[in-house]
């Protein structure tokens, strides 16, 4: 496949994921899924999986609370994975993931604050006129066209034109900074996990956090094991609460 075909396919996939993000919500838009699929299109599933894991961990704790928008993980993962596949190294992904996510977030704010407010007004006008076509256009069709213009087209341009220049810039950056980015990337999960802890608004469950941590750190139990321990903790808490209720 030529780069042109790949760029078009990646852009179409982008549009699909954004359709999913706003409609069916099958979660195809998370980095862990987006990474390998873009990798497949670009001809390097392994690289896709690697980048998908890196960015998924960066944004693991990303919680959509109320109306505040988190950094745009989908847009970021798609471009970062494509760059990584073209250059053959994850360094590009590490260096570009966070800036791209912030650019995507700005695009999303523009969509929600300007474009979709405009369609909201058009929707109200369509209702007054009794136009069924107007309702469908402004509820479903226009928002998806916005996604195409705001996200899929930039993805196409970035993949088709951007990889070369980005690689050139990465080549200029000294190795010590690239290594530093990898180190920062390893630490960044802490922010997301802290954000999750902050968002879970339940009192007096701190020691469960420590149970999970100590089993993992001292006993080196893998995440599947930790999940099983979590299930046991829930069961203990459930029966303790129930018995308290009886007594």
């Amino acid at each position: 496949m030529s780069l042109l075909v790949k760029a078009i396919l990646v852009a179409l996939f982008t549009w699909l994921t954004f359709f999913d993000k706003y409609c069916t919500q099958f979660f195809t838009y998370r980095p862990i899924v987006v990474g390998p699929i873009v990798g497949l299109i670009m001809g390097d599933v392994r690289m896709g999986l690697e980048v998908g894991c890196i960015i998924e961990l960066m944004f693991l704790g990303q919680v959509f609370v109320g109306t505040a928008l988190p950094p745009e993980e989908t847009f970021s993962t798609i471009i970062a994975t494509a760059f990584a596949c073209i250059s053959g190294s994850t360094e590009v992904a590490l260096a570009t993931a966070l800036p791209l996510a912030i650019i995507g977030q700005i695009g999303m704010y523009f969509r929600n604050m300007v474009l979709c407010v405009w369609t909201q007004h058009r929707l109200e006008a369509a209702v007054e006129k009794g136009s069924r076509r107007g309702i469908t256009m402004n509820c479903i069709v226009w928002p998806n066209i916005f996604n195409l213009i705001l996200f899929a087209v930039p993805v196409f341009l970035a993949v088709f034109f951007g990889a070369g220049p980005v690689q050139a810039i990465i080549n200029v950056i000294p190795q010590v900074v690239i290594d530093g980015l990898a180190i920062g990337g390893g630490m960044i999960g802490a922010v997301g996990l802290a954000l999750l802890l902050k968002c879970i608004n339940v009192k007096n469950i701190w020691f469960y956090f420590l149970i999970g941590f100590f089993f993992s750190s001292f006993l080196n139990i893998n995440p599947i094991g930790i999940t099983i321990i979590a299930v046991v903790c829930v069961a203990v808490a459930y029966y303790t609460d129930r018995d308290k209720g009886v007594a």
Partner: protein
Amino acid sequence: MAENEAKKEALKKDLTKLSRKDLWKLYIYSQGFVSGFNYEKQEAPGFTFSMIPVIEKVYKNEEDKKDAYRRHTELFLTEARLSHFVIGVTAAMEERNANEHDIDPVSINAIKAALMGPLAGIGDSLYHGTLRPIIAGLAVSMVMASNYTSVLGPIIFLLVMAGVGQLLRYFGIFKGYEKGVEFVGAMQSSGLIGKLTRLAGIAAFTVIGGFVYKFVTINIPWSYTAGETVVSLQSTLDGIMPGMLPLLYTLLMLWLMNKKKANPVILMLVTMVIGILGHLAGIL
């Protein structure tokens, strides 16, 4: 007398009730629920679009339809899967309003608004705050364990998240239509929501604790010589408690967010900069 009965029968036939087929139609239309999300009326476009099959079915004249569409273009915001419960309840209210005219149409929006809060609370904490990070973390660790060759993790992630999400939508619409508002009331008064939230919080805290060690990496390459032996600071720290630095750094982030109201995106940027500067200085 018999004539009266016949008249009643005829009237009943004239009443427009939603069939199961209509509810399935509602389920399909409601897939577009978050499309058109905006900062003025939030999920109103999606709600309006979802109600098309209901409004077109139950109302006969154009003015009633217009009124119905108009009230759904008002602000609505809750978690996008549990919102389908509200859609189901609203379908039942619209149907009743059209057939029996015994409810104040204003109350439809009032009930929608009353359901937003509790549903958003459990939706965000159970689905996005607990299930998604746990399954995503498992998927990532499966991919890493296969040395980036197996796509089983992502497939399981998709199946679980899409499956649970669509089941919530399906049950929301069908149960919401059937059981109505009382269902949420009963759930709240029985304390079920509170209990569920607490248990999910426990599961999430346990797993997040494990993730802090697995997915946050901080190593200090610095070492010093004591007599004949070279002592690495990192192995000294690991000797006390493995993963001490990731734990402390995570708690620091939490403290900055809770007490200093730090913006998470800024903290992410700062973390990257710390990584670069720390590495330049030779301490990371």
